[in-house]
């Protein structure tokens, strides 16, 4: 490393240091028993990606089965298990932990300027819980699988004869606690470990997003936990409060389930929005537009998420008044979402956009989230939902949000922080090609499902009328293209690990603290408490040709902050 005229010698030291978190200690045990949030984040990332592969295989199997009406490759019973497993794995093992637990764990303390999360042991414990939950979910396959759908609706889930129901319920219960403890850890970390100068409104927007997500995790997930407990008791004893023959109420289960599972959608999407805020600001080198609006809209979405669950139950016999109220509040969620989209677009406008892979994923996100969000309005409108309920329209809608937005955001974030996590650059051409293939495959798969649904094709059906076949064929081909796209992405990452160029500390020109830390970061992140400036003021960043790296010029930054303070 060459010397650069910066007053922050400590930052330079940590940049030049050869010790990093990957080489600090070696051996399997030093990873599996680590308390370092960065290693835990990496372990989560690997685990989540493996689960994604498994969940994706089931998706391909069920799409293949749907190529023709009637039997194509498997029995109806096997098909029921495939879509159930696909849903349960993708929701509970992949998307919910994918951003907070995987990327969040790695990035949050560094972005904040802290050495670690508040409770490192609890953090490792959360990861073990994740492993335990994943173990039970896998075991349920050996125990006979389950065909309840990922929603485990009663009375079917308490009466179906598939043997894996109780193991998977236990698995999801444990995964819930993994999520709760991660949320608890993040809340306390953000409150108690902000270094001097890191005020709430100096925090990068990804931290606001993770904080809002943590609130949802802590307040909503316990409801899932108790619901699954009551469900297990009921399945074992055959009696309980969801059993109408005893005076119980099966619709109560739906209320409980959606009281968690609607906020869970925001556990998936809010952190993805945080990533998009970072990517768009850094890769268009422009001060984020409407910082406070984006920050508060994350909190607003978190709050709204608790009072809209009834929109999943318009057809459950819920009273007309309740339906109207839930419909109205659901529309309101569009406001904070639109605020964010507007601010991102304004940031892009007149920004100096670098079309890197993270930016490509962010642009995909904007497009797909807009479609996913706007079709949500059809589903929240009472008179159209009567028609669309339980059709492919709903399937397409939530895939645009949960996959097209949350997962695409996660993959974009993975590219964005990949140089930081691994210390290696990836091949930009391959990564962008992968992104384009994913984008085409995704729209082919799911846009056709809007058409299927609006024409009345019900979801979760094994058989269908011949006139739907053309759409199913297009959708299935799309899913294969999607798989090729993700495979290309995997090739890109593996190639980067094996022969990627060494990453500089700041390849994109970011200002938030993780870019002022070496790639990969040292064991303790920062040698001394880092200097906190405006993390979206890109005028203090300049390109250094000698090191092929962006340099954050702290002299300029200090001058800026004093001139800001003077008026």
């Amino acid at each position, binding site marked *: 490393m060459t010397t650069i005229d910066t007053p922050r010698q400590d930052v330079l030291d940590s940049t030049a240091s050869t010790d990093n978190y990957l080489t600090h200690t070696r051996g399997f045990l030093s990873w599996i028993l680590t308390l*370092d949030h960065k290693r835990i984040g990496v372990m989560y990332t690997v685990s989540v990606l493996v689960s994604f592969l498994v969940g994706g295989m089931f998706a391909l199997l069920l799409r293949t089965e749907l190529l023709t009406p009637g039997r194509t490759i498997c029995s109806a019973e096997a098909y029921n298990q495939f879509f159930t497993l696909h849903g349960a794995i993708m929701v509970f093992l992949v998307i919910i932990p994918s951003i907070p637990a995987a990327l969040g764990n790695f990035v949050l303390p560094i972005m904040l300027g802290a050495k670690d999360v508040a409770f*490192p042991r609890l953090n490792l414990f959360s990861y073990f819980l994740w492993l335990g939950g994943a173990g039970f979910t896998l075991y349920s396959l050996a125990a006979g699988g389950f065909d309840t759908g990922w929603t485990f609706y009663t009375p079917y889930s308490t009466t179906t004869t598939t043997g894996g129901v109780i193991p998977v319920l236990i698995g999801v219960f444990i995964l819930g606690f993994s999520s709760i403890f991660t949320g608890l850890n993040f809340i*306390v970390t953000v409150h108690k*470990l902000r270094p001097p100068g890191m005020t709430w409104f100096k925090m990068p927007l990804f931290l606001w997003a993770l904080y809002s997500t943590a609130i949802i995790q802590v307040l909503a997930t316990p409801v899932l936990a108790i619901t699954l407990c009551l469900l297990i008791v009921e399945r074992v004893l055959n009696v309980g409060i969801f059993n109408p023959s*005893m*005076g*119980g109420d099966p619709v109560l289960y739906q209320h409980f389930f959606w009281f968690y599972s609607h906020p869970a959608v925001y556990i998936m999407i809010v952190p993805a929005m945080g990533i998009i805020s970072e990517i768009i600001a850094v890769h268009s080198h422009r001060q984020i537009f409407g910082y406070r609006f984006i920050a508060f809209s994350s909190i607003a979405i978190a709050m709204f998420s608790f009072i809209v669950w009834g929109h999943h139950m318009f057809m459950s016999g819920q009273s007309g008044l309740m339906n109207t109220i839930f419909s109205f509040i659901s529309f309101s969620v569009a406001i904070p979402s639109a605020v964010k989209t507007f601010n991102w677009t304004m940031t892009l406008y007149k920004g100096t956009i670098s079309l890197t892979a993270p930016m490509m994923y962010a642009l995909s996100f904007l497009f797909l989230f807009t479609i996913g969000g706007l079709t949500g309005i059809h589903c929240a409108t009472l008179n159209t939902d009567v028609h669309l309920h339980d059709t492919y329209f709903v399937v397409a809608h939530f895939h645009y949000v949960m996959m097209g937005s949350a997962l695409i955001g996660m993959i974009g974030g993975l590219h964005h922080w990949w140089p930081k996590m691994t210390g290696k650059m990836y091949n930009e051409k391959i990564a962008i090609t992968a992104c384009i293939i994913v984008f085409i495959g995704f729209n082919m798969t799911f846009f056709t499902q809007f058409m299927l649904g609006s024409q009345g094709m019900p979801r979760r059906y094994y058989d269908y009328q011949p006139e739907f076949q053309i759409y199913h064929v297009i959708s299935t081909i799309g899913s294969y293209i999607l798989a090729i796209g993700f495979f290309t992405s995997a090739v890109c990452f593996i190639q980067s690990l094996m022969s990627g160029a060494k990453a500089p500390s700041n390849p994109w020109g970011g200002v938030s603290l993780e870019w002022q830390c070496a790639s990969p970061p040292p064991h303790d992140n920062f040698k001394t408490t880092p200097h906190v400036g405006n993390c979206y003021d890109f005028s203090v960043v300049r390109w250094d040709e000698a090191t092929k790296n962006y340099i954050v010029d702290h002299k300029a930054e200090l001058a800026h902050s004093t001139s800001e303070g003077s008026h």
Partner: protein
Amino acid sequence: MKSLEPSRDAFGSDSAGRDRAARQGMWVFVIVVSVVFAATILGYLVVRLNPHMTAPWRAGNVADLPFTLLISTGVLIASSVTLHTSLKRVRRADQVGCARFAIATYWLGVAFVLLQGEAWWSMWRQKVVIEENLYAWTFYVLTALHVIHILGGLFALGIVARRAGEQKYTQASHNGIVLCGIYWHSLDVIWLVLYATLWIGSRSA
């Protein structure tokens, strides 16, 4: 493998900050537990107040809630009082008094669990089985849910009582008692709400 990290601590020398963070973490955990019970009680109310109930809540000859619950409630309140006294003693640098009250709290907690067991036994003796109706089901499931949380608290209380006995808590450093207190008093309050709900719910069929 060089050495496994023995501990990793982001607070460094700021032990007061670490204690504050631990307390905040415990409060968040209490919120988690409260949400569990709030959801359970709400679910209870939904089935209890259901105007279109398909089966009777409680047949006329089914036994009332056992009297033992009243005694166990008293014991639990007493344990909260002793735990708080223990904290007050250590704040006044009275380590012996602190240990005495911490140990008393532990045994009162044990007594509470035994009394809850006795309540179960007395219901079962009167042939109130869980399959009987929702009145019986909710009695067993809700009290069990609470006892499970109490057992967790008892485990922590055991550690605290032992450390207090070894005089490990001082006037300056006794965060363990505080953390344990936050959890234990919360479970106490939750029990009062739960018991009141069960009692009112058990009235009339």
